[in-house]
């Protein structure tokens, strides 16, 4: 193991590989920070360029793009409440609240440190446990996935706000929106009203951009102009994140990394859900849960370590079985294959030195990302100094262009605008938005896994309790529900 890693470092510690990683990080940060340009697109567009490079140059470049793009999604989430990637939606809540309170720098730095720390820990997990974890993940069949999605749905309880009824309404609408498009099994169209564009479903990122960024702008436009004093409060030269503040959240980062890594290892579920799972759990266990949603540094740390922890985990099923868990790793799989490195059971035997070289790159790139990220923060902070009156129109433009860029589809622009109006109305009525987002994220996977389970099963729902792993998870879900109900009754009695 250690010898392998030393050989691996030997493979990549050369100017060409390091330069490729650096270039990849810069490209990834730029793309990730632009709303609507996703890590998947960045890797997909750049991967043909690596076909003719040597593997120890081309693959590090793409791995760096992937890693940096996932991190950089948090930059617009914090500065302009526009999640650059779906995985940064949870970050937008507290990160942007902090930015509005004139603390963009602390939020951005927390996001960077939490991301890098989580990525580093998860990379070590990847190196030590890749093969073993991959076999464990295979034991997760459709019934176990159903239970995992149910656990993810339970996090709605943490972000529900004051009224459970309103949260349930929000989640219900989310589930309905997610069912628009083609039935995943029969291919029948659902709620598309004959429109072939809708048969692909409601695009998620444009809707998210509307719900967060545009709704924010609409709310602002409807509000009375702020007092001059309030404007002056947001001044340059804000405080940096203190070491003590970072140390205080290390338990949260550790826990969220574990959640992210575990979720990342499982196929079909990744950073988008990991960030909500870690955010929800962090809030439940927090000493200051009341700060969540209003600018909690801990919340930013939880969301960001959750989604970055998922990144190295994502690579495991792709490298060990040649089966990508999501679209980014699917594109990476293509890049590996074009290099003659067919991911799968034989990869580690045939190309051990290169594989460990890639692991080494992940570690080195993390250190570089820390330096580059600090540079990016200096630039990003400038955005928050733009007066709101000038920033808001810019946000609208960026949001609409971003919504269009995802699929190059005009329909997505309308979806973003509809999302903005819906988000504005929901805020006015006090209906929380996160339950809707979580429901939309969970619904497609949950539906697929549920229907696959029932097809696999010979006696209906029994499959969920007769399989040992699934049975234990049923017990966990039941216990969590019971505990949440008990807590709710006690609050009411008090």
């Amino acid at each position, binding site marked *: 193991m250690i010898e392998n890693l030393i050989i691996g470092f030997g493979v990549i510690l050369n100017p060409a590989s390091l330069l490729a990683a650096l270039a990849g990080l810069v490209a990834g940060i730029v793309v990730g920070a632009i709303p609507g340009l996703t890590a*998947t697109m960045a890797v*997909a567009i750049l*991967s*043909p360029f690596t*076909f003719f490079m040597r593997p120890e140059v081309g693959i590090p470049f793409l791995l760096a793009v992937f890693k940096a793009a996932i991190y950089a999604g948090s930059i617009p989430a914090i500065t302009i409440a526009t999640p650059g990637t779906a995985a940064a939606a949870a970050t937008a809540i507290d990160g942007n609240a902090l930015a509005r309170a004139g603390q963009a720098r602390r939020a951005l730095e927390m996001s960077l440190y939490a991301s890098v720390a989580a990525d580093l820990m998860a990379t070590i997990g990847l190196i030590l446990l890749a093969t073993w974890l991959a076999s464990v993940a*295979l*034991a*997760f*069949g*459709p019934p176990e996935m159903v239970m995992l999605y149910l656990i993810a749905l339970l996090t709605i309880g943490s972000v529900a706000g004051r009224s459970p009824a309103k949260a349930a309404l929000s989640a219900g609408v989310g589930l309905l929106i997610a069912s628009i*498009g*083609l039935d*995943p*099994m*029969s*291919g029948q169209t659902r709620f598309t009203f004959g429109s*072939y*564009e809708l*048969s*692909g*479903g409601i695009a998620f990122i444009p809707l998210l951009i509307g719900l967060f960024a545009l709704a924010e702008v609409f709310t602002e436009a409807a509000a009375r102009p702020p007092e001059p004093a309030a404007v002056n409060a947001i001044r340059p030269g804000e405080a940096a994140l203190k070491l003590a503040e970072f140390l205080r959240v290390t338990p949260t980062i550790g826990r969220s990394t574990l959640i992210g890594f575990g979720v990342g290892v499982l*196929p*079909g579920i990744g950073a988008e859900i990991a960030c909500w799972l870690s955010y929800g759990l962090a809030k439940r266990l927090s000493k200051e849960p009341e700060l969540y949603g209003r600018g909690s540094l801990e919340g930013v740390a939880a969301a960001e370590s959750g989604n970055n922890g998922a990144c190295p985990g994502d690579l495991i*099923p792709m490298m060990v*079985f*040649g*089966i*990508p868990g999501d*679209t980014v*790793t*699917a*594109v990476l*799989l*293509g890049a590996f*294959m*074009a*290099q*003659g490195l*067919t991911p*799968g*059971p*034989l990869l580690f035997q045939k190309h051990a030195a290169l594989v460990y070289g890639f692991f080494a790159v992940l570690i080195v790139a993390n250190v570089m990302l820390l330096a580059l990220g600090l540079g990016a923060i200096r630039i990003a902070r400038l955005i928050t100094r733009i007066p709101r009156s000038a920033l808001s129109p810019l946000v609208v433009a960026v949001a609409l262009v971003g919504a269009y860029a995802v*699929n*190059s589809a005009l329909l997505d622009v309308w979806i973003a605008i509809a999302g903005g109006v819906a988000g504005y109305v929901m805020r006015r009525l006090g209906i929380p938005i996160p339950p809707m987002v979580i429901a939309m994220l969970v619904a497609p996977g949950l539906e*697929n896994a549920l*229907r*696959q389970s029932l*097809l*696999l099963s*010979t006696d209906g729902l029994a499959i969920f309790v007769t399989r040992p792993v699934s049975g234990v998870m049923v017990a966990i879900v039941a216990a969590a529900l019971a505990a949440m109900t008990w807590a709710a009754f006690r609050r009411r009695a008090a």
Partner: protein
Amino acid sequence: MLKRTILCGALGAALLAGPALAQATFPDRPVRLVTPYPPGGATSLHAAIITTVAEPFIGQPMISILRAGGGGVVGATEVARAQADGYTLLLGDPTINSLRPQVENLPFKAEDFIPVARINFAPVVFVAAANAPFTDLAGMIAHARANPDRIVYSSDNVNGLTFTAFEMLKAGANIRMRGVDFGGGGPAMNALLGGNTMAYAGLPAVVGEHIEAGKVKPICVTDVARLARFPNVPTCAEAGQPVQWLFWLGIMAPKGTPQDRIEKLSEGFAKMAQDPGFLTLIGRINSGIQFLDHKAFAEAFEKEKAELRTLYANLRNR
């Protein structure tokens, strides 16, 4: 003086000829190749390689556009409705171009596309999980007879590649097995490796490594000849059921594209298909080239459409 006159004359001629030439030369701007599936699958891999290599052969850059959604319907519909000028092409396959538009109510018809060039052609391989209670086709059929609906296999989606392969087998052998839809090769293979399902049928590029690693048991190949890579794996006909199902990837243009442009593109792709650099890249993704130009491809396409129509009618009457 004379020199200047000649120069001016030549320049003038060039300026006059310019617009006329531009109209005559196709293509004079980049050509878009639409992949109707998400990134990472066999189709997008081929698209990435084709668009990287194609420029010198067709005279303009090619741009790969990934328009996933609706199991390929969204991207294919977009190309079917695009301007028929040869600048928007689809990387098609038998399910989205010949089977599904004939048997489902889709926003486009099989006749909405003109074949331009077939890139490759591969059979699928039936495989069984390492712990499945059968090791060959006869054993699988016997097990299915003895236990109707108890063999659970990984499928992709209705009328998809794997779905159709199993429907052919079930109809031919008159057996009953249950398919679970996983939407695509990756998740389907995952369920097989995890022991959640007992069988699968997929392209050699998807199942090959797992056969070599001994993680799945090869059953048979849906072609008339064995695969060079797996000389010990019988064809399905040899194993007792003449299932023949070949999956191609090919360039399709929207109906109405001028014939001379179809020919020009077909010639360009023909040259590309012999380029050593292109062949190297294709070989690396465990694929091969079985090129057909637009005429031969169109004939094969018509024949296949008719065959699939008959097959589907038989499946439904069962």
